[in-house]
């Protein structure tokens, strides 16, 4: 299987020449930096502030507990800062509780994403296997006219079958809806209606 990219390359520590790359790099690394900072705060319980100016003259900042508080602390280095009052501690405790919850939520989502990506990989492998086995699985561009002819017929066949089947299902559902409607008005429920859950609270439209 051919690699899509060269993988992680050692990068020269100098200003990037291509602006498009520079912007992408800024975006990714800024995000990564904040992530590392956030982790440091959680793991070690420290206070932090980071200010980053973007190539586009915008400014990003990250702070824990918050940027302004840390900047004030820094700028007022001469005056000894008052020790945390009880209120501050309560606020901080509350904040870290919700931060923890959010972190949990994030981890769950990331795990889900990982699973989905694995599924995607498997599906891709399945497809590759089929492509190796059957000529009609190859990309359309690779096929000869006669092959396309045959494939086309098969696809059209399938299309018709799908249409037929879809119709069948739709009619079936409509019939069931009608049946449920009828029994509902008679104040009795057929076993089928019960199973399918067509209860009295549903209003069913039919043509």
């Amino acid at each position, binding site marked *: 299987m051919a690699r899509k990219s060269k993988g992680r390359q050692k990068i020269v*520590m100098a*200003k990037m020449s291509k602006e498009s790359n520079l912007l992408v790099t800024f975006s990714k*690394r800024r995000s990564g*930096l904040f992530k*590392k*900072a*956030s*982790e440091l705060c*959680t*793991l*070690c319980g*420290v*206070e932090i*502030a980071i*200010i*980053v*100016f*973007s*190539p586009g003259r915008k*400014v*990003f900042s*990250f702070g824990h*507990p*918050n*940027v302004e508080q840390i*900047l004030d602390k820094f700028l007022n280095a001469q005056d000894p800062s008052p020790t945390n009052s009880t209120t501050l501690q309560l606020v901080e405790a509350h*904040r870290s509780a*919700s931060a923890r919850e*959010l972190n949990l*939520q*994030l*981890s769950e*989502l990331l795990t889900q*994403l990982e699973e989905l*990506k694995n599924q*995607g990989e498997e*599906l*891709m492998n399945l*497809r590759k296997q*089929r492509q190796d086995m059957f*000529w*009609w699985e190859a990309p*359309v561009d690779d*096929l000869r*006219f006669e*092959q396309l*002819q045959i*494939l*086309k*017929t098969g*696809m059209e*066949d*399938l*299309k*018709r*079958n*799908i249409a*037929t*089947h879809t119709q069948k*299902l739709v009619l079936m559902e409509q019939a069931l809806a009608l049946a449920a409607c009828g029994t509902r008005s008679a104040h009795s429920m057929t076993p089928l209606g019960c199973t399918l859950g067509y209860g009295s609270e549903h209003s069913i439209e039919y043509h």
Partner: protein
Amino acid sequence: MTRKKVKLAFISNDATRKATYKKRKKGLMKKVEELTTLCGIDACAIIYSPYDEQPDVWPDIAGVERVVEKFKSMPEMQQSRKMLNQESFTRQRIAKTNEQLKKQLRDNREKEMTEVMSQCLTGQLGLHNLTLPDLNDLGFLVDQKLQEINKKMNEISLQEATQQEPVVIPEEAPQQQQVVPTTVSDNVGLLAGGVFEEQRLDIAGGSSDVDAYGLVPQWFNDAVVGNNATANDQNLGFMNMFGDENNPAAWDNYF
């Protein structure tokens, strides 16, 4: 560069916590420096730890003062617009991850239905297994594939048309004469087996082992005609061509 995955929670062990802090702080400062160098921008970092009265900073106190000054000189709104704390940063990441999840779901769905399409084609899977939404998605994919096929067939026809002599003698290029009607006609309204049967009847010398294309053995054409007559989803005419228990796709050899 540790192998163990660290749980994202406050480290209770004092020694471990201090060691982690030293390592990660160093790494963080390095990252800040790299960011400024690679992108040619201004930045600073301030860290207050229980281990020191003085904060750990990057680049240095004077540098931090300069950047903070630059920051404060900006309008209030610009300052706060992209200001984040742990909570808001995490929310941002959650939103982004949700987007990625949605996209991956869509991708996987398409891949899955493509697989289903392949299996239906070979008769491995029957349509009765599918729900309405499945059938809808499948129909869409099939249409898409047909579009691609038609497009490619037209391309090829055009190529061959320009390459050939203006006057085409039927005997010399029987294939071309036979296939042109299909490519030119509207592909939406092809009746079951109709056009295909026409073409098959056009094939002269049907007694030979292979048809006029020289590719498909006669049993295939017989099978297709027979099955198209009934055309139920259990017995797709196409299925025989791709091989089942009775007729493994031996004619693959022709390609």
